């Protein structure tokens, strides 16, 4: 099961990184979201995978590691705040700069190519 888990984390990371390398803000936001899933899963798994042993004290006495969970819980909430900030920044960037390229301007070579294809931003 651990192998499957690790594979998923690796795949999420790869997908997230690929998207953060795109040139448009929305793709980058999606990429960051995927990447944060991967990071949260990774951190969570440092407490090792255990079934049916939530860290709520009871008679069974078998518990998973609560510390990574506490860390990841706040990470999820902060991750939301950061995603929100990036999204709003992207919107503000589009409002102020007139385009949604991550550099705030469309590189000259690309815009020539786009004109050729009939793309209007």
């Amino acid at each position: 099961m651990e192998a499957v888990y690790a594979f998923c984390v690796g795949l999420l990371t790869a997908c997230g990184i690929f998207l953060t390398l795109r040139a448009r803000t929305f793709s980058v936001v999606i990429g960051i979201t995927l990447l944060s899933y991967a990071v949260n899963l990774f951190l969570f798994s440092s407490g090792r995978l255990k079934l049916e042993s939530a860290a709520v004290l009871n008679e069974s006495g078998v518990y998973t590691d609560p510390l990574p969970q506490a860390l990841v819980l706040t990470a999820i909430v902060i991750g939301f705040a950061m995603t929100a900030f990036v999204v709003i920044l992207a919107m503000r960037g589009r409002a102020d700069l007139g385009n949604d390229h991550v550099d705030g301007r469309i590189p000259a070579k690309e815009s020539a190519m786009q004109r050729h294809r009939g793309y209007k931003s």
Partner: protein
Amino acid sequence: MSLIWIPLFPLLGTLVPLLTSRFGRNLCAFSVAVLPAASLLLTLLAAPDVLNGETLRYHAQWISSLGLDISFRMDGLSFLFCCLILGIGLLIILYARYYLSSQDSIGRFYAYLILFMTAMLGIVLSNNVIQLWMFWELTSISSFLLISFWSHKSEARKGARMALTVTGAGGLALLAGLLLIGHLVGSYQLDDILNSGDLIREHQAYPVILLLVLLGAFTKSAQFPFQFWLPHAMAAPTPVSAYLHSATMVKAGIFLMARFYPVLAGTELWFLIVSMTGLATLLFGAYMALFKHDLKGLLAFSTISHLGLITLLFGMNTKLAAVAAVFHIINHAIFKASLFMAAGIIDHESGSRDMRKLNGLWKYMPHTALLAMVAAASMAGVPLLNGFLSKEMFFAETLDQDTLGSLSWMIPVLATIGGVFSVAYSMRFIHDVFFNGEPIDLPKTPKEPPRYMKLPVEVLVFLCLLVGIFPSFAVSGILAAASSSVLNGSLPEYSLAIWHGLNLPLIMSSLAMVGGLIVYYNRRHLFQFQAQFEDQDAKYIFERWIQKLVNRCEQFMEWIDNGSLQRYIVTMMIMALIFMAGPLLDLKTTEGPRVLLDLNGVVLTGALLLCVGAVATVIWHRERLVALLMLSVVGLIVAIAFAYFSAPDLALTQLAVEIVTIILLLLALFFLPQKLPKESSPRRITRDIAIALLIGGVVGTINFAIMTRAPDTISDYYLENSKTGGGGDNVVNVILVDFRGFDTLGEITVLGIAALGIFKLIAAMRLYMPSSDERGRTWSTDQRPLILSVISQSLLPLAILVSAYIFLRGHNSPGGGFIAGLITSVAIIQQYIANGVDWVKPRISLSYQWLIAGGILVAALTGAGSWLFERPFLTSWFDHFHLPWVGDFELASAILFDLGVYLTVIGATMSILANLGQLTTSERISPEQH
């Protein structure tokens, strides 16, 4: 009285001129002189002790752990320099009062001058080498201010910048050298370093240390090839040149060599570097001085030459040479300061410094002329003047060394040639200016200066004569004390007499005298010869180099910082890959010994869904809505994974956050471009896929390697103490609100800051609502669906109830402030979606910003409350109570903290979403309002 007052008085004195400059120049000059005069008095009071060979000390603790202390010491060498700095400084204060015109800000000038004086005193008195270096840099900075005093002149600015660059760079080298010395010796105290000479000289790092320290000394003392800044520093007002470039600033480098003489000198490397540099500087300066038509230019090159002479003496590694060097430090300071002041008087009273125009001034200013002639004769080394004595000692020493083997005869010969030019330029200073026909085209008719402007020159010229005629009476005490501290106590036999009999040095002196006169007589031929060379202006060369350096830096910066985010991320990712993959190469087996869980159908299905969702997000990332849907699939599977692997709190949080995130992104879609262009080239896509897969592979491998090894955890403590110490069964929640409460407080603060930042970003946003989608279909204007509206209204109280339940049980079962806050937020957002902003706004009159502030405040105050019971911040308290009908229940202060978390989460989430949502409605803030 304590030693610290000697540098401290002038430091306080920098404020005096700023306060008194409005009361006229006489009062200002007088008040400025008071504190340095007090310092001089203190120095002289210390004379009996110091001249007896004692060393005075002052020590105060500062940052002892870093080896930094405020520490001063005064031995003979420091005493000599203190006398020069303060004595000549006082004369300069008097002289500057007459030299500066009424347009110049005399207060500012004096403030800089006194600051410089403090810095020099700091250098010569420091007992801690780091402190010494600090004062060293202060001289560079204050001399920059002084040289650029007439900042409206371009040459003053450029000259100052050049001086600062060269001496500042040398200062950095010096710092490196001093740190190395401190590292070797294990102490930055000069007392310890001076006694560790053998340790340092025998260490393999000695050549490096020597080079670094000498770089500092040579740049400061304008030694070849760093001499070029000094002539350009002549753009400074003449009092500055007289002070900085005769007795103080340029002598700081010489002082450094003298100070570290017991530590660094005595090796062949020292001899080769120091004496050869000194010799080259001596010859170069003496030769160039002859061809300068500017009076101060001549003096500048003569200074370079004399500094070279002193350096050469220190380089010779004999005790007598060191004594001669100290003696020449005194003599040069005296005659050169007086010559600079005389040159300033000539400039001041005739309006020119050009020796081609200045002729025959003897008739107009005989008194000044006499003073200048005596000083210049001393510079040439004429008998009965102080310059003669040290020059004689210098010639004697050049004869007495053999390190160059059979080539050793070259040193006295070259020294004599230097002497020839020295006589020639001194002759030019006297003959060209005061005789040689009539003045040509002077802006003013020359006349004698005011009475007291000459006084400082008179004092110094009197000293020239006094030392020259009665050397043993005038200087033997101070010379012996200073030399013995240079030599660390062992003073050689020497005699200060005018007549040593007819010997080789005297013949060399006579040769130099006669040769100098011949050279001066035939100067026209030499001038013609020199005119063939292209005039190399160091200023332009320097500026060109600086410009080149700046251009290179700009190119480099453009290369790394080209403004492309994609480039930055690629670089960052590749670096991350290198750092992550490196250690993995050393890991022998990926799989560890831990017993793994069995794979089952449920997990496989979930993993499959997650992978499909993630890959689909990537494939359709340009179809935004599809990408978003796929993303939400991934988010849900992550939530289920948390639930499956025993993390119910995480699952609840992830679920709630997932909903809020998707709503946020949907709102954002409304304003972002409808379609993303296909713009990456196939090559770029291939590269990015390769990088992404590599990193993904590495991360997955690391994750697998971690999970297959047994944990080494600190969590047992939390599990054991959760109930007894925190009063809760849900360990995750107890960690959040109790054990690691301070972290949580920080995190909700970050949350609040992010929300407020978003609020400001939205408030000033100028966005125009698109009226149609990409296919040209207009947005629906239908009212909101009635069923949704009715259901959501009736759901609201239930949702709030659920969130209250989740909040209250959080301490003992999955739940808590974070999750409850998110659930409440989702319930409120649902009202916005179902009924619209116009409907919600009058009904929920909550200010979300205040909610954030209130939440953080509640959490912080709960933490601070434990101070009332004299416990550390955020100590929690709990107890069990019994109420009829309700039964046993528990109250914990942590729940109050969790309430703060709850409020902040609602405030932040709602502030983000409601403000963003408002943009899509008629309620949006119009751009005109901002």
